[in-house]
């Protein structure tokens, strides 16, 4: 019970505070940019050459500001924003008026989650397993070869990897499409046609994410395992003649997994914002793509909706992680 009162409850309070401060920062930063969404719309109207009465125009600006939650002082806007955000209402998207920001986001969410969840998990599993084995047998030649591959792949900036894949697999040898999530005319359903088409389009983006992710998990796992391998308890296990398999899985890999679990929860939580480059490069209609559009258009409402969800997701992941930490590593106690 002591742990609950002394550790878990304060940790949950921190969680709420973190989400709150994070959202506050993200609320104020865009408000200090010169991107003015209302002015942008007015400019678009007046550019079309039509004449507008200045009075009517200023009335229009006023009513739009109210609609967009940009009326009054910054503090008023902030309080109004918090009140609405608490109820899950982020107002209409400014660029795609009058669709609510939340419904735009909900439409994009399944694309992102399916693509990034699957590729993150695949990369983590494959990278850690192969990395662990390669670390344990680090003197063998095949392990060195695998290491060399990961060493070249991992530090390459994600964008460069995506560009190389597009250049090779969709321009030089045109096998895979370089943009979009499904072909035009195919509707999301549980049919085989849709699933195949989906997988076909998701292949390149997923591959780029898996390759880069694999490099990281492989290298980090390998170096941890090489370190763990030289720990005394493993050497003791070797001396007592434990079977290799047991030694590898139960002694070495299990004890090396701790930082990797930390990593995967952070990686999963950053799905929201992490998807941005992938989706912009591959024109994939997910959350990162609409976030990018929102930032460029000064679409505050949509931006805040995505960013708020992203903050909550990341904070929740760290919370869960901190709560289960002592279960994974008995050396760390609730303090």
């Amino acid at each position, binding site marked *: 019970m002591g742990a609950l009162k002394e550790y878990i409850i304060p940790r949950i309070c*921190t969680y709420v505070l*973190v989400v709150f401060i994070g959202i506050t920062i993200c609320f104020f930063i865009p408000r200090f940019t010169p991107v003015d969404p209302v002015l942008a719309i007015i400019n678009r109207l007046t550019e079309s050459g039509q004449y507008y009465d200045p009075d009517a125009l200023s009335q229009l600006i006023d009513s739009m500001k109210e609609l967009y939650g940009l009326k009054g002082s910054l503090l008023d806007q902030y309080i109004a924003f918090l009140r609405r955000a608490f109820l899950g209402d982020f107002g209409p998207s400014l660029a795609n008026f009058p669709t609510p920001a939340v419904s735009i986001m909900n439409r994009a969410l399944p694309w992102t989650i399916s693509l990034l969840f699957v590729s993150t998990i695949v990369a983590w599993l494959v990278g850690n397993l192969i990395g662990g084995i390669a670390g344990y047998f680090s003197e063998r030649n095949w392990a060195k070869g695998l290491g060399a591959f990961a*060493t070249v792949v991992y530090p390459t900036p994600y*964008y*460069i990897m995506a560009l190389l894949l597009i250049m090779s697999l969709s321009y030089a040898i045109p096998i895979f499409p370089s943009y979009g999530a499904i072909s035009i005319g195919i509707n999301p359903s549980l049919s085989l046609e849709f699933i195949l088409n989906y997988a076909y389009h998701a292949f390149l983006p997923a591959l780029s994410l898996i390759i880069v992710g694999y490099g990281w998990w492989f290298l980090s796992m390998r*170096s941890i395992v090489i370190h763990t391998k030289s720990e005394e308890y493993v050497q003791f296990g070797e001396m007592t003649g434990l079977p290799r398999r047991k030694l590898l899985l139960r002694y070495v890999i299990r004890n090396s997994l701790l930082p990797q679990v930390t990593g995967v929860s952070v990686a999963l939580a950053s799905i929201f914002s992490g998807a941005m480059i992938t989706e912009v490069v591959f024109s994939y209609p997910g959350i990162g793509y609409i976030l990018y559009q929102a930032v460029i258009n000064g679409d505050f409402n949509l*931006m805040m909706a995505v960013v708020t969800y992203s903050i909550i997701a990341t904070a929740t992941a760290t919370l869960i992680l901190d709560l289960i930490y002592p279960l994974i590593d008995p*050396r760390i106690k609730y303090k």
Partner: protein
Amino acid sequence: MVVITNLKRYARFLWNFLRFSPNITVGIVICLVILVMGFGISLFAPYDPRRWGSTPRNLPPSSDYLLGTTSIGQDVFWFLTYAIRNSMLLGVVGSAIGLVIGTVLGLIAGYKGGIIEKFILLITDTIIVVPTLPILILVSTMIKKQLDMVMLGTIIALLTWGLPVRNVRSMILSLREREFSHVASFSGFKMLNIITSEYTPHVLPWISASFISRINMAIGMEVTLSIFGLSSLQEATLGTMIYWALNYQALLKGLWWWILTPVVTIIFSVLGLFILSVGISEFLNPRIRLHRIMIGEKK
């Protein structure tokens, strides 16, 4: 005499370091090439390579123009030297600032505990959960006109110092539970002493490796920003080079020397930095070094 002996010792240390593993040797060579390109050869540019129209357009590599010329009349080779200089500058600034903030806060949090740890972790967690790229894009749109490399590096650092705090803290937490920590504190070592003499050898490999990999991260972020057209586009960096090449359809027009030069340079330099960081952390890891020495004696 003392000076000479010391010099000799340093030289021997350096020599041992350089020959320690192929990772270090190759990494150092690549880094030297990059540094000489960026900070040495760039000084001899006959004119400002950023200027448009200073050479004929679209020429393939030749003896006059080592790496060809661009569609806007720039010499790719001289432009590259400027680009490397700026990208490295940005990388080092972005990495160093973030790492110093992160490590110091992580050490304090891990060792002090209590209310100080709670406060540091609160701020850290906030920085971690705030999504970096959207904010970075926003801030760069905001100050695109005045953006220079040092500034961009500082912004990147200020958005990314969170993770090192958590890493360093969890390392310290784990170290604190180990026996030698108890021994040290029971024998009356002060906190600063324990950190500098007992913990640093454990944390140092991580810090140096992380410094270099964060240079890579900062370079990568600048490349990403440039793709979105949000870096300082009039400046020469590896990212803006790709941006202008793609912008002028270098791929479709077959100007491979223009687009491939920055791509290959990026892969080459991040690879060099990366294997150097791996080499350094192996070198600083006392266990691996002991292992090597033992193997060497057997031979």
